[in-house]
């Protein structure tokens, strides 16, 4: 696998498949805890939330990575724990990490990172296409849910419609190129750019 690198100030952590896969249930667990905490008046204070949720998230992540036998589980747990909770907003002056994404958009983003950053999928062009088709469908489906809920303006809807049709066209082009014998057609990078833009919209509207 081609590992991804995340930087937190001067700290570098190598993210493995296992760490990214574990980050998904951890993100959901944090969201669940946040939803429960919303029911208690004490936890509604922003000062409490800012410090408490990152700590819970870090503890959960370190514990999960320790049990899973992840190397350097403490520092990896701190970095991924902060990512899962969105807590590195508190470190915004020094941290250079991906945008906090603990919702569906975050999961889809992780799927996208896994597909395009992982040797597993690069080694099998058909699997890479299939995974991209599935991620694209789920992205469009969740954008449709947000659209029905009235989250997008008319202008945003028009831009999204263009991007969604472009994404579909690139996938068809990609499939055709694979059938013609090309393993790394240009359509892959074009599709990836479209998917990134769609996920940015979803992060903006579907985030917590």
């Amino acid at each position, binding site marked *: 696998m081609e590992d991804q690198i995340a930087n937190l100030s001067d700290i570098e952590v190598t993210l493995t498949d296992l760490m990214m896969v574990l980050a998904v249930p951890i993100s959901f667990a944090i969201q669940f805890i946040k939803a429960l905490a919303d029911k208690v008046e004490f936890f509604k204070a922003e000062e409490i939330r800012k410090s408490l949720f990152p700590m819970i998230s870090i503890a959960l992540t370190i514990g999960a990575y320790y049990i899973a036998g992840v190397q350097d589980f403490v520092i990896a747990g701190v970095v991924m724990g902060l990512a899962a909770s969105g807590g590195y907003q508190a470190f915004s002056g020094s941290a250079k990490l991906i945008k906090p994404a603990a919702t569906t958009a975050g999961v889809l983003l992780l799927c996208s990172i896994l597909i395009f950053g992982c040797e597993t999928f690069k080694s099998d062009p058909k699997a890479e296409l299939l995974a991209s088709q599935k991620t694209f469908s789920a992205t*469009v489906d969740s954008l449709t849910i947000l*659209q029905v809920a009235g989250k997008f303006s008319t202008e945003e809807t028009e831009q999204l419609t263009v991007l969604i049709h472009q994404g579909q066209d690139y996938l068809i082009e990609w499939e055709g190129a694979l059938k013609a014998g090309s393993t790394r057609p240009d359509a892959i990078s074009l599709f990836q750019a479209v998917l990134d833009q769609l996920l940015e919209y979803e992060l903006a509207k579907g985030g917590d």
Partner: protein
Amino acid sequence: MSTTSALLVLRLVSEGVGVAKEIADLAKRVQAGDEITDAEIEQARNKVAESVANWDDASKQE
């Protein structure tokens, strides 16, 4: 959080969980040397077309 917001989050979460599991299963299959069939690609292409059509319908009803 209102009931409508909670339902929206639940629908989004179920969408995310569903695809994450599919991608993880697919990665396992690739690592096991399982071959992806043309029928699977075709089925996924049809699902993409369905999702795009649903988006088009929803955006027209705005």
